[in-house]
């Protein structure tokens, strides 16, 4: 059986390797577009002076959430001593590290002068949530890499699982708060802005955290499906069942929080914030919003609570994908309404920074750069660079899965040598 497993893992390893190559290729193409963006500036994106944050920041927030979600789940296992979930930890960490790297990539892609990123450290101002985020994300990444090191490095080979677990348990007491903090701070980048009424809410951090857990757990379900054939350590049916329960709980929480927010704004009405809410409910973002709620939250809720569907990993994956899409849309539906509705709507509006040349016989403005109505549509470049980040995250996750697979076999072989009395023998 061992041989068969080995053989399986090798052939599946080839398939995984092909996917890894594809992801790498996409990431490289995206990098090429990024170089173009470095040369020409951010004008290659669809952003303007009104909607000054777009797809990059949205994806950044999404990745942070995805990352934090995964880590929250796996750290909670140690902090709250949920034994079954402890086995999810390695894949959870891998996902966390991959996604936070994706987040970092997106943030760098969004910066006008990325070569100056160290200015946040040198002379950085601690009044800014972005400074906090920088440090906390760095800390978070270090913890994530530390935990990966615990799982995968040769130093830890041969050490008993219990020893590892005790270190991880200690680390979890740091990593859980950090994971919550990292996404709260990302939320505060928006939530502390009095000047953007839609963002200015006390429950921005709770909303972000709950949707982070939703997306993180969803991702784990997808990974569970993808690894169903050779079985990823920690994602067996029972663990998956626990994840499902977690997901259901947090979907409900997330719906509740967002409902509170929108209901409060819509009820009072007349303010810029309520106008933003109206954009979501009935305005230009309504299609995205209602897709998020219905297809992205309610349908997965049905799938995850339905007795027959619950058992299918395939359906779990569908639910997982839908909730991830939902959370991505949620990021859009939080960032864009805050920017689209401006405080001073007097004509002619805001100087958008876009000079559109006249198509007539002389060089002059063809359109006014002013606009009282904000518009935003991501360009090809933005979409490709974002896709590249996703591809890179996928690549790192698959690399992690490789390492987990190797970790699994190594550990169990070693342990087998060490003792035959442990429960691990039954895993073969």
């Amino acid at each position, binding site marked *: 059986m061992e041989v068969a497993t080995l053989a399986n893992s090798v052939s599946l390893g080839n398939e995984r390797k092909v996917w890894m190559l594809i992801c790498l290729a996409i990431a490289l193409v995206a990098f090429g577009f990024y170089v173009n963006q470095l040369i*020409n*500036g*951010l*004008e290659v*994106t669809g*952003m*303007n*002076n*009104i909607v*000054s*944050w777009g797809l990059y920041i949205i994806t950044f927030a999404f990745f942070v959430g995805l990352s934090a979600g995964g880590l929250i789940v796996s750290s909670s296992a140690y902090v709250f001593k949920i034994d079954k979930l402890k086995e999810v930890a390695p894949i959870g960490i891998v996902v966390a590290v991959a996604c936070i790297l994706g987040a970092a990539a997106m943030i760098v892609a*969004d*910066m*006008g*002068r*990325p070569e*100056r*990123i160290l*200015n*946040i450290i040198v*002379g*950085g*101002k601690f*009044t*800014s*949530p*972005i*400074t906090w985020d*920088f440090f906390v994300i760095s800390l978070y990444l270090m913890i994530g890499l530390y935990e990966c090191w615990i799982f995968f490095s040769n130093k830890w080979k041969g050490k008993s699982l219990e020893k590892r677990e005790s270190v991880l348990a200690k680390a979890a007491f740091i990593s859980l708060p950090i994971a919550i903090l990292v996404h709260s701070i990302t939320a505060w*980048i*928006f939530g502390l*802005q*009095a*000047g*953007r009424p839609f963002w200015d809410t006390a429950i921005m951090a709770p909303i972000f955290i709950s949707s982070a857990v939703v997306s993180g757990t969803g991702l784990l379900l997808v990974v569970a499906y993808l690894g169903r054939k050779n079985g990823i350590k920690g994602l067996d049916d029972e663990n998956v069942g626990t994840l499902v329960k977690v997901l259901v709980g947090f979907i409900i929480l997330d719906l509740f929080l967002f409902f509170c927010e929108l209901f409060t704004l819509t009820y009072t009405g007349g303010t810029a914030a309520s106008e933003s809410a109206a954009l979501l409910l009935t305005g230009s973002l309504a299609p995205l919003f209602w897709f998020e709620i219905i297809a992205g939250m309610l349908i997965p809720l049905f799938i995850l609570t339905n007795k027959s569907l619950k058992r299918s990993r395939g359906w779990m994956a569908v639910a997982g994908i839908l909730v991830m899409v939902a959370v991505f849309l949620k990021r859009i539906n939080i960032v864009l309404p*805050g*920017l689209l509705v*401006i*405080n*001073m709507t*007097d*004509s*002619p*509006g*805001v*100087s*958008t*920074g*876009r*000079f*559109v040349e006249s198509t007539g016989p002389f*060089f002059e*403005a063809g359109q*006014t*750069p*002013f606009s009282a109505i904000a518009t935003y549509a991501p360009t090809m470049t933005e979409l490709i660079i974002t896709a590249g980040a996703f591809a890179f995250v996928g690549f790192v996750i698959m690399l992690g899965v490789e390492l987990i697979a190797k970790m699994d076999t190594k550990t169990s072989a070693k342990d087998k040598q060490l003792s035959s009395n442990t429960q691990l023998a039954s895993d073969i």
Partner: protein
Amino acid sequence: MSKRLALLIDQDRCIGCWTCAVVCKMENNVGLGNHWNRILSNGTGEYGETPKIGLDGKPELVFQPTTCMHCENAPCVKACPTGATYKRKDGITAQNYSICIGCRACMAACPYNARVFNWGTAQQVPSFEDDHVGDARVPSRPKGVVEKCTFCQEKTDAGEKPACVTSCPAHARVFGDINDPSSEISGLMSESSHHSLLEDLGTKPSVFYTAPRRKLKVSYNQDGGGYLGE
């Protein structure tokens, strides 16, 4: 007591001619597509020229030049991670272009949409190889940094007034230190009622507006000299 530089705009005098906005672009070499100063009006339509209809059914149009408010409690300064945006001792919210990383947190923070970003390398007509339009003391900005009205800090440091103030053909803009009771602007502000924009957001702007005068009643008395203010 330290200075607090402020701007007072007389909306009765202001005719919305856009001279201050165009001059600002020239003096500070602001690229095409961006403006540090813009004239908002309570009119509607694409150019704000369609007058609003007042309560008495008559059309009315009021012009409001709008720029960086140099807030005392500046949200942009709080939001900037690198300190590229900072408050000077004289009250000016200043910008250090060599530190700015272009994250645009300040733009998201500004409730007045006063900030503009160099999405690409600023396009300018005329553009010179080794020089730029406008005041030589104003630094050129590379692409990828945020910029905004600086109360012409290079000029104010030299004891001059900002370009918009010295250029307004209607003399509708007054600039000075409102912490100095003997300054012209302090005198004017104490004589008239004035307001700032979005005051309830707590930003404490340093740009003030005096409202247009109420319309004079025209009285057509046969006798009585004819001049009536009522």
